[in-house]
């Protein structure tokens, strides 16, 4: 029996899952930097500034993927049962909180929140809650499709969360570096934090793939991803670009290089890791295989 992977959700959905995660991760990194205080001005502002636009552009990709985009505003009509509706609400609240954060801290009302640390930090905590919810939701969204066992697992939200935090941190490092921040202090610290996140992500993706052994359709998904048609994308795109290369470059930057060299290594690591994060979403989407239908001894693969 040959089981076919789903083809209805394509790269636009992957881009959405990726950008929503990256935005949430960057925001968490930014607000955490803000809590740390002196020296973190640039990365914390970059993080908070990246959140809203990333998630917003991600939503544009999702709307582009809709068959009837004129009805997109109905996406939140049934939060009682539908995870898309719940996610739409979560993401909207996150975008509103981040927009307030950006508007009152950075632009167009500079100073309103800059001098009121308490209010800004409170807003940051609220925002972090919804940023985490946004990152985790991207995994739950797929998980609610129960016939697709490769998605319907508690490991997927965790995998997407760790990848989102990692790509978010890398985005902050990348944009801060482009804006001229030197590779020292906070930027070097974020790069080292990302080393830990990537190591964690390696373990999580290992557990995620291990958890596919239970039913035939998710075993087929794991085989498709690791040895089948999706394998080049998985090994080259995600394992190499998303995990190995950034990990090695960040370790070299941390231990063997100083100054500009370390900065360049961190920037290349960030670009590579961010691309890998996008490819991870696409790999998971392409690996989605529906459960076969069973009647007596027969198992029917859906066409």
């Amino acid at each position, binding site marked *: 029996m040959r089981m076919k992977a789903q083809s209805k959700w394509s790269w636009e959905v992957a881009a959405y899952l990726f950008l929503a995660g990256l935005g949430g991760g960057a925001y968490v990194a930014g607000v955490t930097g803000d809590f740390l205080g002196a020296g973190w001005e640039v990365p914390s502002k970059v993080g908070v500034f990246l959140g809203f636009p990333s998630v917003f552009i991600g939503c544009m990709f999702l709307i582009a993927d809709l*068959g009837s985009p004129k009805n997109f505003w109905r996406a939140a009509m049934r939060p009682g049962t539908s995870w898309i509706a719940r996610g739409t609400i979560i993401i909207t609240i996150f975008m509103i909180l981040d927009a307030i954060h950006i508007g009152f801290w950075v632009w167009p009302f500079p100073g309103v929140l800059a001098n009121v640390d308490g209010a800004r930090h409170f807003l940051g905590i609220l925002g972090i809650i919804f940023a985490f919810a946004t990152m985790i939701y991207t995994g739950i969204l797929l998980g609610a499709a129960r016939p697709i066992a490769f998605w319907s697992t508690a490991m997927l939200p965790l995998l997407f969360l760790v990848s989102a935090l990692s790509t978010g941190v890398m985005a902050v490092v990348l944009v801060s570096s482009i804006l001229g921040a030197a590779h020292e202090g906070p930027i070097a610290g974020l790069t080292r934090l990302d080393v830990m996140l990537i190591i964690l992500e390696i373990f999580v993706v290992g557990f995620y793939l291990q958890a596919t052994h239970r039913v035939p359709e998710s075993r087929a998904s794991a085989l498709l991803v690791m040895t089948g048609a999706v394998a080049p994308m998985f090994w080259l795109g995600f394992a190499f670009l998303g995990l190995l290369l950034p990990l090695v470059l960040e370790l070299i930057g941390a231990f063997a290089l100083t100054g500009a060299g370390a900065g360049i290594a961190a920037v290349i690591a960030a670009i590579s890791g961010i691309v890998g994060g996008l490819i991870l979403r696409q790999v998971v989407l392409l690996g989605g295989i529906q459960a076969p239908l069973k009647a007596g001894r027969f198992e029917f693969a859906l066409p």
Partner: protein
Amino acid sequence: MTRYGFVIDLKRCYGCYTCQVACKAENCTPQGVDWAKCVPAEVGSFPTALRQMLPLVCMQCAEPACMDVCPTGATTQDENGIVQVDKNLCMGCKYCIMACPYGARQVVDDWTTYFPDAEGPLDPYESWAKKEWETRRTGYGIATKCDFCMHRVKVGKQPACVEACPAKARYFGDLDDPESEISILIRRERGFQLNPEFGTDPSCYYLPPR
């Protein structure tokens, strides 16, 4: 209360695909949309190999997974247990396609010709079918599905695939009536639902294969 249901006798089905074609003829579905379809499977190896066909329709589940995940409220269940999609409310997110264990939902972008290598506009029959497709509950970019031919049932006819089945493998009736033909068949011949582990309580029952 009425709960419309199907019984499909796997012993009788020989996989002629008449149900699939009858559905197309009745509902004018475009290429890529098969509300009723037949899926083959094999088990064992020579000399004990067996082949079985599995005819599928929308199961009109009592607990429809597609309705749970629908974010817009376009999916509803009517008083007869039929799961309906409102084409004006659906936004085409395709979440229902992912959530349905039975592959009942399909989405299509356009009504294109069935003739290979055909150029130019659709022929008159296809144009008529395209118009029919567009004026019913259906359309492009939105989720579409079988509704047990409610437009026929309302005027006292059987669903098109049931009427057309030459093997008489398909039965249509009311699950809530214990004396209906399908209720008796389910009781007497050990009717079962496909993949009950998904908890959708389908209204389509199957009689065991040989």
